[in-house]
Protein backbone atom coordinates (compact mmCIF):
# COMPACT_ATOMS: atom_id res chain seq x y z
CA UNK A 1 0.00 0.00 0.00
CA UNK A 2 1.46 3.33 -1.05
CA UNK A 3 1.19 5.95 1.67
CA UNK A 4 4.40 7.06 3.41
CA UNK A 5 6.47 9.68 1.73
CA UNK A 6 10.05 8.45 1.14
CA UNK A 7 11.31 11.39 -0.93
CA UNK A 8 10.26 14.91 -0.05
CA UNK A 9 11.42 17.79 -2.24
CA UNK A 10 10.42 21.31 -1.26
CA UNK A 11 11.23 24.39 -3.34
CA UNK A 12 14.34 22.86 -4.86
CA UNK A 13 16.47 25.30 -6.86
CA UNK A 14 19.72 24.57 -8.68
CA UNK A 15 21.65 27.26 -10.50
CA UNK A 16 25.00 26.24 -12.01
CA UNK A 17 27.82 28.71 -11.52
CA UNK A 18 28.20 29.64 -15.17
CA UNK A 19 24.50 29.60 -15.96
CA UNK A 20 22.27 32.65 -16.00
CA UNK A 21 19.03 30.82 -15.26
CA UNK A 22 18.02 28.13 -12.82
CA UNK A 23 18.39 24.58 -14.16
CA UNK A 24 15.89 23.43 -11.56
CA UNK A 25 13.52 26.21 -10.66
CA UNK A 26 11.65 25.92 -7.38
CA UNK A 27 10.18 22.44 -7.73
CA UNK A 28 8.34 20.50 -5.03
CA UNK A 29 7.09 16.93 -5.06
CA UNK A 30 6.85 13.78 -2.98
CA UNK A 31 7.50 10.16 -3.81
CA UNK A 32 5.79 7.49 -1.73
CA UNK A 33 7.24 4.31 -0.34
CA UNK A 34 7.05 1.46 -2.86
CA UNK A 35 5.96 3.81 -5.64
CA UNK A 36 7.16 3.64 -9.23
CA UNK A 37 7.74 7.33 -9.96
CA UNK A 38 8.61 8.46 -13.49
CA UNK A 39 10.38 11.78 -13.83
CA UNK A 40 10.14 12.86 -17.44
CA UNK A 41 11.17 15.82 -19.52
CA UNK A 42 12.99 16.85 -22.69
CA UNK A 43 16.79 17.20 -22.85
CA UNK A 44 18.00 19.98 -20.59
CA UNK A 45 14.74 20.04 -18.62
CA UNK A 46 16.51 19.43 -15.30
CA UNK A 47 16.00 15.69 -14.86
CA UNK A 48 19.63 14.64 -14.42
CA UNK A 49 20.35 17.70 -12.28
CA UNK A 50 17.48 16.72 -9.96
CA UNK A 51 18.50 13.07 -9.80
CA UNK A 52 22.14 14.08 -9.13
CA UNK A 53 21.01 16.23 -6.21
CA UNK A 54 18.73 13.49 -4.86
CA UNK A 55 21.57 10.96 -5.06
CA UNK A 56 23.88 13.36 -3.15
CA UNK A 57 26.42 13.81 -5.94
CA UNK A 58 25.55 17.46 -6.57
CA UNK A 59 24.84 20.32 -4.19
CA UNK A 60 21.54 22.16 -4.42
CA UNK A 61 21.38 25.94 -4.48
CA UNK A 62 18.39 26.07 -2.14
CA UNK A 63 15.38 24.10 -0.98
CA UNK A 64 14.75 21.22 1.40
CA UNK A 65 15.10 17.55 0.61
CA UNK A 66 14.45 14.57 2.83
CA UNK A 67 15.08 11.03 1.67
CA UNK A 68 14.06 8.06 3.80
CA UNK A 69 13.63 10.53 6.64
CA UNK A 70 17.16 11.94 6.39
CA UNK A 71 18.08 15.51 5.53
CA UNK A 72 20.16 15.61 2.35
CA UNK A 73 22.45 18.33 3.62
CA UNK A 74 23.23 17.00 7.06
CA UNK A 75 22.75 13.24 6.69
CA UNK A 76 23.81 12.44 3.14
CA UNK A 77 25.84 9.41 4.28
CA UNK A 78 22.72 7.78 5.73
CA UNK A 79 20.82 8.54 2.55
CA UNK A 80 23.53 6.86 0.46
CA UNK A 81 23.06 3.69 2.50
CA UNK A 82 19.39 3.60 1.53
CA UNK A 83 19.65 4.21 -2.19
CA UNK A 84 20.82 2.32 -5.25
CA UNK A 85 21.63 4.06 -8.49
CA UNK A 86 21.93 3.09 -12.11
CA UNK A 87 23.60 6.04 -13.77
CA UNK A 88 23.01 7.33 -17.25
CA UNK A 89 26.56 6.32 -18.17
CA UNK A 90 27.80 2.99 -16.78
CA UNK A 91 30.08 3.56 -13.80
CA UNK A 92 31.82 0.19 -13.86
CA UNK A 93 35.54 -0.42 -13.72
CA UNK A 94 36.17 -2.08 -17.06
CA UNK A 95 39.50 -3.56 -15.95
CA UNK A 96 37.90 -5.52 -13.12
CA UNK A 97 35.77 -8.63 -13.49
CA UNK A 98 32.02 -8.44 -13.01
CA UNK A 99 32.32 -10.09 -9.61
CA UNK A 100 35.12 -7.73 -8.55
CA UNK A 101 32.91 -4.77 -9.40
CA UNK A 102 30.16 -6.24 -7.22
CA UNK A 103 32.61 -7.07 -4.41
CA UNK A 104 34.00 -3.56 -4.51
CA UNK A 105 30.50 -2.13 -4.20
CA UNK A 106 29.53 -4.52 -1.43
CA UNK A 107 32.64 -3.63 0.58
CA UNK A 108 32.24 0.11 0.01
CA UNK A 109 28.73 -0.20 1.41
CA UNK A 110 30.08 -2.05 4.43
CA UNK A 111 28.18 -5.27 3.77
CA UNK A 112 31.32 -7.41 3.92
CA UNK A 113 34.88 -7.20 5.10
CA UNK A 114 36.88 -6.92 1.93
CA UNK A 115 38.78 -10.05 0.88
CA UNK A 116 41.11 -10.20 -2.13
CA UNK A 117 39.44 -13.28 -3.63
CA UNK A 118 35.83 -14.27 -4.22
CA UNK A 119 36.46 -17.68 -2.65
CA UNK A 120 37.47 -15.92 0.59
CA UNK A 121 34.26 -13.90 0.82
CA UNK A 122 31.53 -15.14 3.15
CA UNK A 123 28.98 -17.62 1.85
CA UNK A 124 26.07 -15.20 2.16
CA UNK A 125 27.79 -12.82 -0.23
CA UNK A 126 28.72 -15.60 -2.65
CA UNK A 127 25.15 -16.95 -2.68
CA UNK A 128 23.65 -13.54 -3.26
CA UNK A 129 26.03 -12.79 -6.15
CA UNK A 130 25.22 -16.13 -7.78
CA UNK A 131 21.50 -15.68 -7.23
CA UNK A 132 21.30 -12.12 -8.60
CA UNK A 133 23.62 -12.82 -11.53
CA UNK A 134 21.59 -15.88 -12.46
CA UNK A 135 18.37 -13.90 -12.46
CA UNK A 136 19.76 -11.27 -14.84
CA UNK A 137 21.62 -13.87 -16.90
CA UNK A 138 25.27 -12.98 -16.36
CA UNK A 139 26.28 -15.88 -14.11
CA UNK A 140 28.60 -17.37 -16.73
CA UNK A 141 30.37 -14.05 -17.20
CA UNK A 142 30.86 -13.25 -13.51
CA UNK A 143 34.61 -13.80 -13.58
CA UNK A 144 35.30 -12.12 -16.90
CA UNK A 145 36.67 -8.59 -17.23
CA UNK A 146 33.89 -6.08 -17.85
CA UNK A 147 35.67 -4.59 -20.87
CA UNK A 148 34.54 -7.65 -22.85
CA UNK A 149 30.85 -7.04 -21.97
CA UNK A 150 28.17 -5.71 -24.32
CA UNK A 151 26.12 -2.65 -23.32
CA UNK A 152 23.25 -4.89 -22.22
CA UNK A 153 25.47 -7.03 -20.02
CA UNK A 154 27.00 -3.95 -18.40
CA UNK A 155 23.52 -2.70 -17.54
CA UNK A 156 22.61 -6.07 -16.06
CA UNK A 157 25.77 -6.02 -13.98
CA UNK A 158 24.90 -2.53 -12.78
CA UNK A 159 21.50 -3.80 -11.69
CA UNK A 160 23.05 -6.63 -9.69
CA UNK A 161 25.50 -4.18 -8.16
CA UNK A 162 22.88 -1.58 -7.31
CA UNK A 163 20.68 -4.16 -5.60
CA UNK A 164 23.32 -6.02 -3.61
CA UNK A 165 22.81 -3.73 -0.60
CA UNK A 166 18.97 -3.99 -0.71
CA UNK A 167 18.28 -0.30 -1.31
CA UNK A 168 14.93 1.15 -0.30
CA UNK A 169 14.97 3.45 -3.31
CA UNK A 170 16.38 2.66 -6.73
CA UNK A 171 17.25 5.65 -8.91
CA UNK A 172 17.33 4.82 -12.59
CA UNK A 173 18.74 7.60 -14.75
CA UNK A 174 17.84 6.67 -18.33
CA UNK A 175 18.77 3.04 -17.66
CA UNK A 176 17.94 1.70 -21.09
CA UNK A 177 19.96 4.18 -23.13
CA UNK A 178 22.00 2.23 -25.66
CA UNK A 179 20.23 -1.07 -25.04
CA UNK A 180 18.68 -3.16 -27.78
CA UNK A 181 14.94 -3.96 -27.46
CA UNK A 182 15.55 -7.48 -26.09
CA UNK A 183 17.94 -6.25 -23.38
CA UNK A 184 15.56 -3.42 -22.56
CA UNK A 185 12.69 -5.84 -22.18
CA UNK A 186 14.75 -8.15 -19.94
CA UNK A 187 15.85 -5.21 -17.82
CA UNK A 188 12.27 -4.14 -17.18
CA UNK A 189 11.07 -7.65 -16.50
CA UNK A 190 13.70 -7.99 -13.83
CA UNK A 191 13.02 -4.57 -12.34
CA UNK A 192 9.34 -5.49 -12.14
CA UNK A 193 10.27 -8.60 -10.18
CA UNK A 194 12.42 -6.54 -7.83
CA UNK A 195 9.59 -4.14 -7.28
CA UNK A 196 7.07 -6.89 -6.69
CA UNK A 197 9.32 -8.86 -4.35
CA UNK A 198 11.23 -6.17 -2.47
CA UNK A 199 8.72 -3.31 -2.63
CA UNK A 200 11.58 -1.08 -3.73
CA UNK A 201 10.68 2.50 -4.58
CA UNK A 202 11.70 3.28 -8.15
CA UNK A 203 12.58 6.77 -9.34
CA UNK A 204 12.98 6.69 -13.10
CA UNK A 205 14.09 9.19 -15.70
CA UNK A 206 13.77 8.04 -19.28
CA UNK A 207 13.25 9.13 -22.85
CA UNK A 208 11.44 5.88 -23.67
CA UNK A 209 7.98 6.85 -22.55
CA UNK A 210 6.53 3.37 -22.91
CA UNK A 211 8.76 2.47 -19.93
CA UNK A 212 6.87 4.99 -17.82
CA UNK A 213 3.41 3.65 -18.82
CA UNK A 214 3.56 1.20 -15.91
CA UNK A 215 4.48 3.86 -13.37
CA UNK A 216 2.20 4.85 -10.51
CA UNK A 217 2.75 8.56 -11.07
CA UNK A 218 4.46 10.68 -13.65
CA UNK A 219 6.09 14.03 -13.10
CA UNK A 220 6.87 16.05 -16.22
CA UNK A 221 9.53 18.72 -15.87
CA UNK A 222 10.33 21.32 -18.50
CA UNK A 223 12.68 24.30 -18.33
CA UNK A 224 13.38 23.43 -14.71
CA UNK A 225 9.73 23.61 -13.64
CA UNK A 226 7.17 20.90 -13.03
CA UNK A 227 4.56 20.98 -15.78
CA UNK A 228 2.38 18.08 -14.66
CA UNK A 229 2.28 15.60 -11.84
CA UNK A 230 -0.25 12.81 -11.65
CA UNK A 231 -1.09 9.25 -12.58
CA UNK A 232 -0.57 8.09 -16.14
CA UNK A 233 -4.33 8.05 -16.71
CA UNK A 234 -4.80 11.52 -15.26
CA UNK A 235 -2.17 12.85 -17.60
CA UNK A 236 -3.64 11.11 -20.60
CA UNK A 237 -7.15 12.31 -19.78
CA UNK A 238 -5.94 15.86 -19.28
CA UNK A 239 -3.87 16.05 -22.39
CA UNK A 240 -5.26 13.73 -24.99
CA UNK A 241 -8.42 11.80 -25.78
CA UNK A 242 -9.13 8.52 -27.47
CA UNK A 243 -9.33 8.62 -31.24
CA UNK A 244 -11.94 6.75 -33.26
CA UNK A 245 -11.02 5.81 -36.81
CA UNK A 246 -13.98 5.12 -39.04
CA UNK A 247 -14.80 4.72 -42.71
CA UNK A 248 -17.73 3.68 -44.85
CA UNK A 249 -18.59 2.78 -48.45
CA UNK A 250 -21.02 5.71 -48.16
CA UNK A 251 -18.30 8.10 -47.14
CA UNK A 252 -20.13 11.28 -48.19
CA UNK A 253 -23.12 10.32 -46.07
CA UNK A 254 -20.84 9.50 -43.15
CA UNK A 255 -19.08 12.86 -43.39
CA UNK A 256 -22.37 14.70 -43.59
CA UNK A 257 -23.63 12.88 -40.51
CA UNK A 258 -20.49 13.69 -38.54
CA UNK A 259 -20.71 17.33 -39.53
CA UNK A 260 -24.37 17.43 -38.58
CA UNK A 261 -23.52 16.05 -35.16
CA UNK A 262 -20.72 18.62 -34.70
CA UNK A 263 -18.05 16.02 -33.96
CA UNK A 264 -14.41 17.10 -34.21
CA UNK A 265 -12.69 15.16 -36.96
CA UNK A 266 -9.83 15.14 -39.40
CA UNK A 267 -9.15 13.11 -42.52
CA UNK A 268 -6.10 10.86 -42.50
CA UNK A 269 -4.13 12.13 -45.53
CA UNK A 270 -2.75 8.65 -46.30
CA UNK A 271 -5.82 6.41 -46.36
CA UNK A 272 -8.58 9.05 -46.21
CA UNK A 273 -10.03 7.48 -43.04
CA UNK A 274 -12.04 9.77 -40.77
CA UNK A 275 -10.45 10.31 -37.40
CA UNK A 276 -12.75 11.52 -34.63
CA UNK A 277 -10.84 13.23 -31.82
CA UNK A 278 -11.18 15.56 -28.84
CA UNK A 279 -14.94 15.03 -28.49
CA UNK A 280 -16.44 15.27 -25.07
CA UNK A 281 -18.50 12.11 -25.43
CA UNK A 282 -17.20 8.63 -24.69
CA UNK A 283 -16.13 6.52 -27.68
CA UNK A 284 -18.99 4.14 -26.98
CA UNK A 285 -21.62 6.89 -27.20
CA UNK A 286 -20.13 8.36 -30.38
CA UNK A 287 -20.08 4.99 -32.15
CA UNK A 288 -23.60 4.24 -31.01
CA UNK A 289 -24.83 7.57 -32.37
CA UNK A 290 -23.55 7.00 -35.94
CA UNK A 291 -26.25 5.63 -38.21
CA UNK A 292 -24.29 5.27 -41.48
CA UNK A 293 -23.02 1.73 -42.05
CA UNK A 294 -19.33 1.49 -41.24
CA UNK A 295 -16.77 -0.73 -42.91
CA UNK A 296 -13.96 0.33 -40.62
CA UNK A 297 -13.85 1.00 -36.91
CA UNK A 298 -10.80 1.33 -34.68
CA UNK A 299 -10.40 2.90 -31.27
CA UNK A 300 -6.94 4.23 -30.58
CA UNK A 301 -6.09 4.42 -26.90
CA UNK A 302 -3.89 7.43 -26.13
CA UNK A 303 -0.34 6.70 -25.07
CA UNK A 304 1.69 8.53 -22.48
CA UNK A 305 4.07 9.46 -25.28
CA UNK A 306 1.28 11.29 -27.14
CA UNK A 307 0.22 13.04 -23.97
CA UNK A 308 3.81 14.04 -23.27
CA UNK A 309 4.40 15.34 -26.78
CA UNK A 310 1.20 17.33 -26.62
CA UNK A 311 2.24 18.90 -23.34
CA UNK A 312 5.72 19.82 -24.55
CA UNK A 313 4.31 21.23 -27.82
CA UNK A 314 1.69 23.17 -25.87
CA UNK A 315 4.41 24.80 -23.81
CA UNK A 316 6.53 25.64 -26.83
CA UNK A 317 3.58 27.52 -28.33
Amino acid at each position, binding site marked *: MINNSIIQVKNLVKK*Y*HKSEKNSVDDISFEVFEGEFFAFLGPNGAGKTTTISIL*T*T*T*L*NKTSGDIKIAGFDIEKQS*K*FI*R*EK*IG*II*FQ*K*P*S*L*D*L*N*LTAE*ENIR*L*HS*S*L*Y*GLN*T*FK*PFFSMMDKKYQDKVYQLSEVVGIKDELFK*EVKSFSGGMKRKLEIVRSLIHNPKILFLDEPSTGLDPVSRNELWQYLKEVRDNEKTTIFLTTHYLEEAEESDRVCIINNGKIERLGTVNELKNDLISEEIIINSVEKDNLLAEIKSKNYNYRINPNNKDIVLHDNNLSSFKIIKSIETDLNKLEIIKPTLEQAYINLIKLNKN
Partner: protein
Amino acid sequence: MISKEINAAITIAYRDIIKLFRDKTRLVFIMIFPVIFIGIIGGMFQQNLGQNIKYNYQMYVFIGIIVQSLFSTSVNGLVSLVRDREEDFTQEMFVAPISRYTIIMGKILGSGFISVLSILGIVLYGLILGLPITFVDIIVLAPVLLISVLLGGAFGLLIIGNVSSQQTVNLIFPFIMFPQMFVSGVITPVNKSGLILTILSHLAPLTYLIDLAHGLLASYREEYAGLTIYSPLTNIIIILVIFILFVFIGTFAFARKEKTK
Protein backbone atom coordinates in the same frame (compact mmCIF):
# COMPACT_ATOMS: atom_id res chain seq x y z
CA MET B 1 34.32 -6.56 11.27
CA ILE B 2 36.89 -3.78 10.90
CA SER B 3 35.72 -0.19 10.75
CA LYS B 4 33.54 0.49 7.75
CA GLU B 5 35.73 3.37 6.61
CA ILE B 6 38.97 1.37 6.90
CA ASN B 7 37.33 -1.50 5.04
CA ALA B 8 36.32 0.91 2.29
CA ALA B 9 39.83 2.41 2.11
CA ILE B 10 41.35 -1.09 1.76
CA THR B 11 38.81 -1.88 -0.96
CA ILE B 12 39.74 1.23 -2.92
CA ALA B 13 43.44 0.47 -2.49
CA TYR B 14 42.95 -3.11 -3.66
CA ARG B 15 41.27 -1.90 -6.83
CA ASP B 16 44.36 0.12 -7.77
CA ILE B 17 46.65 -2.80 -6.97
CA ILE B 18 44.68 -5.34 -8.99
CA LYS B 19 44.53 -2.90 -11.89
CA LEU B 20 48.32 -2.60 -11.82
CA PHE B 21 48.77 -6.37 -11.96
CA ARG B 22 46.35 -6.56 -14.93
CA ASP B 23 48.36 -3.90 -16.79
CA LYS B 24 51.59 -5.81 -17.49
CA THR B 25 53.21 -3.00 -19.50
CA ARG B 26 52.74 -0.53 -16.67
CA LEU B 27 53.98 -3.06 -14.14
CA VAL B 28 57.17 -3.72 -16.09
CA PHE B 29 57.71 0.00 -16.71
CA ILE B 30 57.28 0.90 -13.04
CA MET B 31 59.89 -1.65 -12.01
CA ILE B 32 62.35 -1.23 -14.88
CA PHE B 33 62.46 2.54 -15.35
CA PRO B 34 64.26 3.41 -12.09
CA VAL B 35 66.70 0.58 -12.68
CA ILE B 36 67.55 1.93 -16.12
CA PHE B 37 67.85 5.37 -14.60
CA ILE B 38 70.33 4.26 -11.94
CA GLY B 39 72.16 2.12 -14.46
CA ILE B 40 72.59 4.80 -17.11
CA ILE B 41 72.71 8.09 -15.17
CA GLY B 42 74.30 6.65 -12.07
CA GLY B 43 76.80 4.58 -14.00
CA MET B 44 77.73 7.40 -16.35
CA PHE B 45 78.26 9.95 -13.57
CA GLN B 46 80.08 7.46 -11.37
CA GLN B 47 82.52 6.55 -14.14
CA ASN B 48 83.15 10.10 -15.38
CA LEU B 49 82.85 12.25 -12.30
CA GLY B 50 82.72 9.79 -9.45
CA GLN B 51 86.49 9.56 -9.21
CA ASN B 52 86.68 13.15 -7.96
CA ILE B 53 84.10 12.92 -5.21
CA LYS B 54 84.54 11.35 -1.84
CA TYR B 55 81.18 9.57 -1.63
CA ASN B 56 79.74 6.67 -3.63
CA TYR B 57 77.83 8.43 -6.38
CA GLN B 58 75.69 5.42 -7.33
CA MET B 59 74.62 5.10 -3.71
CA TYR B 60 73.69 8.81 -3.76
CA VAL B 61 71.54 8.35 -6.89
CA PHE B 62 70.17 5.08 -5.53
CA ILE B 63 68.69 6.82 -2.48
CA GLY B 64 67.42 9.72 -4.59
CA ILE B 65 65.72 7.41 -7.07
CA ILE B 66 64.05 5.38 -4.33
CA VAL B 67 62.58 8.50 -2.73
CA GLN B 68 61.67 10.00 -6.10
CA SER B 69 60.03 6.73 -7.20
CA LEU B 70 57.91 6.50 -4.09
CA PHE B 71 56.94 10.15 -4.36
CA SER B 72 56.00 10.11 -8.05
CA THR B 73 54.19 6.73 -7.95
CA SER B 74 52.17 8.05 -5.05
CA VAL B 75 51.35 11.27 -6.95
CA ASN B 76 50.35 9.16 -9.97
CA GLY B 77 48.08 7.01 -7.83
CA LEU B 78 46.13 9.98 -6.59
CA VAL B 79 46.01 11.62 -9.99
CA SER B 80 44.37 8.44 -11.35
CA LEU B 81 41.20 9.79 -9.70
CA VAL B 82 40.99 12.24 -12.61
CA ARG B 83 40.88 9.28 -15.01
CA ASP B 84 38.30 7.59 -12.76
CA ARG B 85 36.25 10.75 -12.94
CA GLU B 86 36.41 10.80 -16.74
CA GLU B 87 35.49 7.12 -16.93
CA ASP B 88 32.55 7.85 -14.60
CA PHE B 89 33.84 5.44 -11.97
CA THR B 90 34.10 8.16 -9.32
CA GLN B 91 30.27 8.22 -9.29
CA GLU B 92 30.32 4.73 -7.84
CA MET B 93 32.67 5.84 -5.06
CA PHE B 94 30.91 9.12 -4.38
CA VAL B 95 27.48 7.59 -3.88
CA ALA B 96 28.84 4.98 -1.47
CA PRO B 97 28.10 5.75 2.19
CA ILE B 98 31.69 6.61 3.00
CA SER B 99 33.56 9.81 3.66
CA ARG B 100 35.44 11.63 0.86
CA TYR B 101 38.52 11.39 3.10
CA THR B 102 38.21 7.60 3.02
CA ILE B 103 38.39 7.69 -0.78
CA ILE B 104 41.54 9.78 -0.57
CA MET B 105 43.00 7.48 2.10
CA GLY B 106 42.26 4.43 -0.05
CA LYS B 107 43.97 6.06 -3.00
CA ILE B 108 47.04 6.91 -0.92
CA LEU B 109 47.11 3.38 0.46
CA GLY B 110 46.87 1.83 -3.00
CA SER B 111 49.49 4.09 -4.53
CA GLY B 112 51.68 3.48 -1.47
CA PHE B 113 51.63 -0.24 -2.10
CA ILE B 114 52.41 0.29 -5.79
CA SER B 115 55.24 2.63 -4.77
CA VAL B 116 56.76 -0.03 -2.55
CA LEU B 117 56.50 -2.50 -5.40
CA SER B 118 58.22 -0.04 -7.68
CA ILE B 119 61.28 0.16 -5.42
CA LEU B 120 61.71 -3.61 -5.20
CA GLY B 121 63.42 -3.61 -8.59
CA ILE B 122 65.67 -0.75 -7.52
CA VAL B 123 66.69 -2.43 -4.28
CA LEU B 124 67.41 -5.69 -6.08
CA TYR B 125 69.48 -3.83 -8.65
CA GLY B 126 71.34 -1.98 -5.89
CA LEU B 127 72.25 -5.30 -4.28
CA ILE B 128 73.44 -6.70 -7.62
CA LEU B 129 75.59 -3.60 -8.14
CA GLY B 130 77.10 -4.23 -4.73
CA LEU B 131 76.10 -0.86 -3.34
CA PRO B 132 77.17 -0.47 0.29
CA ILE B 133 73.62 -0.71 1.68
CA THR B 134 73.57 -1.72 5.34
CA PHE B 135 70.80 -2.84 7.66
CA VAL B 136 71.17 0.47 9.53
CA ASP B 137 70.59 2.37 6.24
CA ILE B 138 67.32 0.51 5.74
CA ILE B 139 66.14 1.19 9.31
CA VAL B 140 67.11 4.88 9.13
CA LEU B 141 65.60 5.45 5.68
CA ALA B 142 62.36 3.47 6.22
CA PRO B 143 60.47 6.41 7.81
CA VAL B 144 61.59 8.66 4.93
CA LEU B 145 60.10 6.17 2.49
CA LEU B 146 56.77 6.27 4.30
CA ILE B 147 56.86 10.07 4.45
CA SER B 148 57.63 10.15 0.69
CA VAL B 149 54.50 8.12 -0.04
CA LEU B 150 52.37 10.36 2.15
CA LEU B 151 53.74 13.62 0.76
CA GLY B 152 53.33 12.25 -2.79
CA GLY B 153 49.71 11.45 -2.00
CA ALA B 154 49.14 14.92 -0.58
CA PHE B 155 50.80 16.53 -3.61
CA GLY B 156 48.62 14.39 -5.92
CA LEU B 157 45.58 15.51 -3.97
CA LEU B 158 46.54 19.14 -4.50
CA ILE B 159 46.75 18.47 -8.26
CA ILE B 160 43.40 16.67 -8.58
CA GLY B 161 41.70 19.31 -6.49
CA ASN B 162 42.61 21.85 -9.12
CA VAL B 163 42.60 19.90 -12.38
CA SER B 164 39.49 18.54 -14.08
CA SER B 165 40.58 16.58 -17.13
CA GLN B 166 43.05 13.84 -17.93
CA GLN B 167 44.16 15.93 -20.90
CA THR B 168 45.24 18.72 -18.55
CA VAL B 169 46.97 16.18 -16.32
CA ASN B 170 48.90 14.82 -19.31
CA LEU B 171 49.85 18.35 -20.25
CA ILE B 172 51.01 19.66 -16.89
CA PHE B 173 52.37 16.47 -15.39
CA PRO B 174 55.75 16.50 -17.16
CA PHE B 175 56.20 20.15 -16.13
CA ILE B 176 55.44 19.39 -12.51
CA MET B 177 57.23 16.09 -12.09
CA PHE B 178 60.17 15.95 -14.47
CA PRO B 179 61.99 19.18 -13.45
CA GLN B 180 61.71 18.15 -9.80
CA MET B 181 64.04 15.28 -10.57
CA PHE B 182 66.82 17.72 -11.48
CA VAL B 183 66.23 20.53 -8.99
CA SER B 184 65.52 18.40 -5.95
CA GLY B 185 68.86 16.70 -5.59
CA VAL B 186 68.01 13.27 -6.98
CA ILE B 187 70.93 13.30 -9.41
CA THR B 188 73.33 15.82 -7.93
CA PRO B 189 73.48 17.77 -4.68
CA VAL B 190 71.69 21.13 -4.97
CA ASN B 191 72.98 22.82 -1.84
CA LYS B 192 75.43 24.98 -3.78
CA SER B 193 73.17 26.11 -6.65
CA GLY B 194 72.76 29.67 -7.91
CA LEU B 195 69.80 31.86 -6.99
CA ILE B 196 67.33 30.68 -9.66
CA LEU B 197 68.05 27.01 -9.15
CA THR B 198 67.89 27.48 -5.38
CA ILE B 199 64.44 29.07 -5.73
CA LEU B 200 63.30 26.22 -7.98
CA SER B 201 64.70 23.66 -5.54
CA HIS B 202 62.78 25.22 -2.70
CA LEU B 203 59.56 25.17 -4.72
CA ALA B 204 59.84 21.41 -5.33
CA PRO B 205 58.33 19.30 -2.52
CA LEU B 206 60.60 16.42 -3.52
CA THR B 207 63.66 18.49 -2.50
CA TYR B 208 62.80 18.24 1.20
CA LEU B 209 62.38 14.46 0.99
CA ILE B 210 65.69 13.95 -0.80
CA ASP B 211 67.39 16.38 1.56
CA LEU B 212 65.94 14.54 4.56
CA ALA B 213 67.12 11.17 3.27
CA HIS B 214 70.64 12.40 2.56
CA GLY B 215 70.71 14.35 5.83
CA LEU B 216 69.84 11.25 7.85
CA LEU B 217 72.48 9.27 5.98
CA ALA B 218 75.03 12.02 6.65
CA SER B 219 74.29 11.83 10.37
CA TYR B 220 76.27 8.59 10.61
CA ARG B 221 78.12 8.40 7.27
CA GLU B 222 80.67 11.16 7.15
CA GLU B 223 81.24 11.00 3.41
CA TYR B 224 77.69 12.33 2.79
CA ALA B 225 78.14 15.36 5.07
CA GLY B 226 77.93 18.79 3.46
CA LEU B 227 75.59 17.69 0.66
CA THR B 228 72.31 18.88 2.16
CA ILE B 229 70.48 22.19 2.37
CA TYR B 230 68.80 21.80 5.72
CA SER B 231 69.08 19.65 8.83
CA PRO B 232 66.78 16.60 9.04
CA LEU B 233 64.67 18.34 11.72
CA THR B 234 64.13 21.42 9.57
CA ASN B 235 63.19 19.19 6.64
CA ILE B 236 60.70 17.27 8.78
CA ILE B 237 59.05 20.51 9.92
CA ILE B 238 58.85 21.83 6.34
CA ILE B 239 57.45 18.51 5.09
CA LEU B 240 54.85 18.46 7.85
CA VAL B 241 53.72 21.99 7.05
CA ILE B 242 53.43 21.43 3.30
CA PHE B 243 51.76 18.03 3.87
CA ILE B 244 49.04 19.64 6.01
CA LEU B 245 48.64 22.47 3.51
CA PHE B 246 48.40 20.12 0.51
CA VAL B 247 45.91 17.81 2.24
CA PHE B 248 43.78 20.67 3.48
CA ILE B 249 43.68 22.64 0.22
CA GLY B 250 43.54 19.52 -1.97
CA THR B 251 40.72 17.78 -0.11
CA PHE B 252 38.69 20.96 0.15
CA ALA B 253 39.11 21.74 -3.56
CA PHE B 254 38.48 18.11 -4.59
CA ALA B 255 35.30 17.66 -2.54
CA ARG B 256 34.05 21.08 -3.64
CA LYS B 257 34.76 20.37 -7.30
CA GLU B 258 32.83 17.10 -7.20
CA LYS B 259 29.68 18.44 -5.61
CA THR B 260 29.61 22.11 -6.53
CA LYS B 261 29.11 22.93 -10.17
